[in-house]
């Protein structure tokens, strides 16, 4: 623009427009995202039943929560769900994603079917599996599926694994989708070169596909681990809101909900929520660290 007296005014007007445009997102996210992040830490020092007035209670909630064996049980269950979910979901998602990637008609038809769980809500999935796994009228009464006629969700030993299975059923399609997108971005030239080189299919998978998918692997693993850390909806529905039988599926988010909204102890629930936040942040930092370590090499190695 030419240097006229108008320039200054234009620049100021631009800044004002910019601020106005930024305001709604900033306000909404600040109010419901950032502010509560501080709020949850503060409420950990409060005494509040969720309805009445809030009073301060010092560090009581913290000592109460961390000397309670139930907290450590919930933490341990959360870690178990996270680790087992990752171990189960990653190889299956990777295999399905690699399978779906080539453009063939019958693969496309299968892929449409495989994506269907993505459109169901966690509540719908929970209600359906609860009925499907009913020992008397569920799948267990189909000839050949008799092994399912156990109280899978009702047994303290099996409930957690059953929940992990249903979580996998819900989320594998999404992660397969991520891997599929990842595979499709691998330059075809790499495979052509490897074929000319005489690399077998297994070699090509190990030497090209897997290394090229490491960013997808990091993304998918991050979402899986953080996702199962905070997972609530499905476990809530499958256990009828109790995290049961007993406390067999009472992971940290459920323990928080029950403490806060059923036992009306928001202070202790906030301590549990803060634990969740810290756990999540440490996990993200750890994954970023680890992934930066592998991100040092070029993603396009072999091409240049």
């Amino acid at each position: 623009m030419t240097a006229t007296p108008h320039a200054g005014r234009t620049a100021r007007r631009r800044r004002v427009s910019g601020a106005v445009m930024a305001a709604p997102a900033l306000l909404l996210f600040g109010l419901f995202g950032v502010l509560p992040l501080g709020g949850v830490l503060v409420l950990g020092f409060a005494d509040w039943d969720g309805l009445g007035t809030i009073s301060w209670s010092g560090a009581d909630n913290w000592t109460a929560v961390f000397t309670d064996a139930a907290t450590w049980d919930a933490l341990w269950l959360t870690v178990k769900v996270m680790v087992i979910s990752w171990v189960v979901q990653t190889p299956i998602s990777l295999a399905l994603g690699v399978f779906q990637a080539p453009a063939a008609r019958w693969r496309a038809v299968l892929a449409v079917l495989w994506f269907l769980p993505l459109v169901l809500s966690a509540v719908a999935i929970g209600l359906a599996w609860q009925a499907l796994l009913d020992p008397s009228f569920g799948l267990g009464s189909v000839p050949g599926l008799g092994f399912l006629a156990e109280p899978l969700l009702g047994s303290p030993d099996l409930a957690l694994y059953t929940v992990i299975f249903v979580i996998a059923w819900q989320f594998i399609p999404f992660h397969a989708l991520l891997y599929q997108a990842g595979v499709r971005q691998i330059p075809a030239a790499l495979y052509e070169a490897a074929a000319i080189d005489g690399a077998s299919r297994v070699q090509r998978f190990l030497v090209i596909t897997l290394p090229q998918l490491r960013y997808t692997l990091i993304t998918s693993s991050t979402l899986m681990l953080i996702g199962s850390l905070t997972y609530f909806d499905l476990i809530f529905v499958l256990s009828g809101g109790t995290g049961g039988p007993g406390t067999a599926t009472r992971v940290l988010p459920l323990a928080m909900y029950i403490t806060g909204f059923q036992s009306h102890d928001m202070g202790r629930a906030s301590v549990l929520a803060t634990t969740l936040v810290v756990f999540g942040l440490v996990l993200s930092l750890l994954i970023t660290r680890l992934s930066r370590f592998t991100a040092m090499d070029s993603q396009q190695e072999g091409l240049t």
Partner: protein
Amino acid sequence: MTTTTSRTTPPSRVVLGQAAGGGRRGWTHPATRTARHVVVGASSLFWTALVVVPLYWIVITSLRDQADFFTTSPLTPPSDPTLDNYGLVWSSGFPTYLLNSVIVTVAAVALTLAAALMASYVVVRFNSRSSRWFFRLFLLGLAIPLQAVIIPVYLLIIELHLYDSLLAIVLPSAAFAIPVAVLVLVGFLRDVPRSLYEAMDIDGAGEWRILWSLVLPLTRPALTTVAVYSGLQVWNGFLFPLILTQNPDRAVLPLALTAFRGQFGINVPATMAAVVLSTLPVLALFMIGRRQLVAGLTAGFTK
């Protein structure tokens, strides 16, 4: 197409990082190949069955009468299919819950799109320190799990006198959809050539004019992606409605489903009819715009 070149014979060795593997030839024995096809085929069929059988069961169960449910094998189609369960669900307040879900989803998505589009434009267009901070805030936001902050959000909603209203679901849902939306839109807007903005600057267009007649039409595909992704999240969202509303008249579909489960009790076919009905709108969208849905689901996480 990337995996069909396995039998090309090597004319000469091409330099390729680590892929050489000692010069083994890419030819596999036919028996090995057949075995591989059997394994791949069987596993994909197994997974397909694992996905399809429960879905099939949901549909046929919703068409049974209750007596049939207790006497017939679960996977046998009903001898006398009936829509009575759907009638029962419909007359148990379903239209109200459907309307609530539509209102909440449309409002939250509209709010997300408007706020995120303006915010992304600011991030891309104003290359200042505050705009970079602004962007970093949303990146941080991606790491905030909504489950962890639900108690302060609950307190906030009470203080704002919004408890037990649809707006109580809309505002936090939009707030938590904004970070991903900004991330996707910023990635998209960064690819718009600077010269387009500059041309409009020279024409003397203000920021609002540029946003409206340049950015909005250009970002339409990305906006569709964001709308689909956030729409699905809000439609299926459970925690905000569970905590922030109470009156059955304000219930959205996921919440209503759990209520139906309690109300219908052992009438599993009716519960499954409710499951089908609550999924139909999303399923219809899935049929029309599967591509957008797939793009929407992965957009924030692939590059």
